[in-house]
């Protein structure tokens, strides 16, 4: 299977809890070896999607396949293809880390000899060898997250689904977690990672999917998503010197819409604008500045911010919900 082959395919996936629509015809495709950042506000439908993918929940309609195995019909196959780490660790009392991993290895039917090798391998990969004799319940949250990833890797799954792996981790542990995930992707595994720590996701994911109100709002590379969702873009205009910078700022301001934000950085000799103008309008602005005699050295668009895209998606969903009437929850009408 090469990297352009889709490993995860979700088509028109819907999940209803009574009147509450947790997922609304969500479709996405993910290729082998990619890391998908699956983000959205609380109650957006992320965990519901994940639970359907790992066979813990049944969709109301639509389908989901992992490496060709249907997540409803080929459950046994899917369980061997997927490594799932839920947001809750699922600890057992009085068990040492090695025993914990040994149990899950045995549950996946791995032979005893092979199991010992794989346990050593996954502990090595997750930098957790030193904690193999520790009791699972006495581990810190960060350590448990590492053991959780080691557990998901035991049966060598093609797809790893990690629900909030960086949640509650300190910066050092987060950096370590990031390097583990990147290493796994290098090995050719496909990763679906949910997180609320967006800067973290933007560093590791080559694909981002934003889901809100049960609907997929945007999917693609980070730039594609931010461009799709951000209503405003940030433009940086660099000048050769700071002479006449204030006047140039006035000209920029007069050429853009009234609510555009224009700021001047004398030290950098840069004028920054946050504007909703399209490419044509920005081209006109550049032409205007040059014809006005301004010595522009660079005119560039700054890559969009994932946080802003996230907020836009959440607001869209909120607006849709308000238009539909009183909000409903899984438990009933709120």
């Amino acid at each position, binding site marked *: 299977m090469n990297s352009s082959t889709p490993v995860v395919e979700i088509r028109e996936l819907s999940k209803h809890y009574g009147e509450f629509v947790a997922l609304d015809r969500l479709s996405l495709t993910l290729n082998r070896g990619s890391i998908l950042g699956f983000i959205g506000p609380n109650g957006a439908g992320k965990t519901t999607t994940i*639970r*359907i993918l*790992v*066979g*813990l*929940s*049944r969709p109301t309609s639509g389908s989901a396949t992992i490496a060709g195995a249907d997540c*409803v019909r080929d*459950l*046994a196959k899917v*369980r*061997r293809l*997927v490594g*799932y780490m*839920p947001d*809750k*660790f*699922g*600890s*057992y*009392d*009085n*068990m*040492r880390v*090695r*025993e914990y991993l*040994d*149990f*899950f*290895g*045995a*549950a*996946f*039917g791995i*032979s*005893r000899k092979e*199991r*010992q090798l794989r346990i050593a391998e996954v502990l090595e990969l997750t930098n957790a060898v030193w904690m193999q*004799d*520790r*009791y699972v*319940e*006495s581990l810190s949250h960060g350590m448990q997250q590492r053991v959780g990833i080691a*557990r998901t890797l035991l049966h060598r799954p093609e797809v790893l689904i990690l629900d909030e792996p960086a949640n509650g981790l300190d910066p050092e542990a987060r950096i370590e977690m990031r390097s583990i995930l990147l290493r796994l992707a290098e090995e050719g595994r496909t990763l679906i990672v949910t997180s609320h720590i967006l800067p973290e996701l933007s560093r590791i994911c080559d694909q981002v999917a934003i889901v809100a109100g049960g609907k997929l709002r945007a999917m693609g590379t980070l730039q594609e998503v931010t461009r799709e969702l951000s209503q405003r873009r940030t433009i940086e205009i660099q000048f050769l010197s700071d002479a006449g910078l204030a006047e140039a700022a006035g000209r920029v301001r007069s050429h853009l819409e009234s609510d555009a934000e224009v700021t001047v950085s004398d030290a950098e000799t840069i004028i920054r604008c946050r504007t909703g103008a399209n490419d044509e309008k920005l081209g006109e602005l550049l032409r205007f500045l040059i014809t006005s005699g301004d010595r522009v050295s660079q005119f560039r668009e700054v890559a969009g911010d994932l946080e802003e895209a996230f907020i836009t998606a959440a607001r869209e969903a909120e607006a849709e919900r308000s238009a539909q009437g009183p909000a409903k929850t899984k438990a009933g009408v709120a």
Partner: protein
Amino acid sequence: MHGIGVILGRELLALLRSPRILAILFAVSVCSAIVVFLKWPTSAIVDLDGARGREVFRWLTYAMVAAAILAVPVFPSTLLVREVRRRTLELLLNSPLSRSSIYFGKVLAMLGFVMLLLCSTMPAMACAYLMGGVSFSGDILRMYLFLIVVCTELIVIGLLVGTWCRNTESALRWSYGITFLLTVVPWFPDALFPGGDSPLAKGMALLKLISPIPGILQLLNQGSVAGTGLIELHDPVVSYLTFAAIFITVGSIVCILRLSHSLLDRARSQGYMTDDQDGWIQASRRILYLVDPQKRSKGIPPLINPVMVKEFQCRQFGRMHWLLRLVAFCAVLSLLLTLASARGTESRGVEFTGALIIVLQVSLIVLLTPGLAAGMIAGEIEGGSWNLLRATPLGPGRILLGKLISVVITLALLLCATLPGYAVIMLIKPILQPQVAQVLICLVVSAVLSMLISAAISSLFRSTAIATTVAYGVLIALFGGTMLVWINRDAPFGHSVVENTLRLNPMAAALNAMQASGFEKYNLVPSAWWISGAVSLVLLVLLFVQTLRLTRPD
């Protein structure tokens, strides 16, 4: 005082808001009403000596004691464990409240619940008073005050246990275990090694005084039932109150001292692994240990159910070295029971000793089984590991089988402990051989039924504490509640009603097979086996269906 008031208000409000409290109070009111109803005079002749009133008072007291032993340990034992898990204890300890005000606030709140519990029996007690023969200050008030002391002791036990245990399940198990140890167990040594002036016999008789039951019987003017010989030299009420006062004081001091930040950060040392030690240490440990707990496991062997191994590993005393200790303990227990059988048969007859061993065994089964089986599914759901199990290729049948086998093995070890006692009975009276065989079948049936009841309850709840409490309640109702019908066998229940009710109780069938006093005239074997077997089968099906449902996608 202000701090105590703050905690008291918060805890009492939380307790009163709980629907479980309402259910318990309702159940106790209904039970006490049933006692009055059953003992209400049926003839029109006025009972001038007040015997009927005293009988109602006696039965109401028994009901109150049973309710206190069953309901009171639940809340204090889980209270601190929950506070630690939810980190609310951290907030309390970081507040200006002193540790003693936190502790006493909680004790007083629990006592508030006890007051409500006792108040719910007051209408029934008023009926007993109106029937005559019972004085208010001499009987009723003294009994209520005595029960308040008993409940305070149970509250202190629960809170103390809560400072040691890490989860609600083990807190409940230990609370019930210690309650059982302090109330019921002190009776057995004296019953098994009766009379005599030997220091052992005297010690056994004194041991009985730490239980509140002799004191209660004394207050009911049933002192002769409570004790013989030495016990009559000591006033059981005074003896118990002295013991309870010491226990409550020492227990409270220990509990207040333990109520600190160390409860929130209980790191568990991994110890030194034998595999990492020098060669000579490894060699010496190989000689000294049958099973070295610090040696790295070689992994789950092939063809063994991994869930079963996991269940043993997760249990507090489930590891091989603990199981060996359990076997050793059982061997010692069986030797003691053998000795008791030999001595008891001389003075009280084979049947009495046999009956005592049966009651002891069933009590052990009732005490231990909910702890082993009631958390098997509820615990996994509560801890979040159920979803991990569901995400593995293990089927519901294999998961269930692994869990059940782990309970069966532990219960089998316990039951085996008392077999030598029966061997002595058969040696003394070989004619009893077929009866003993029947008793053993009844005990196996009791164990299987208890396990399946607890396991089925476990599959119906998402909280281990609730599942364990409900399992204890159902088992006590089955093994103890049906005996209440037997106690009322002359009036109001007729022979057939008692016989049919006892058929539900495999312990009664065992007592019937042993021809224990009061059980000879019933014919419970083998019908009790069939009934228990059928119930077990239904429970097994229910358990499997529930497991299947819980493992399937939602």
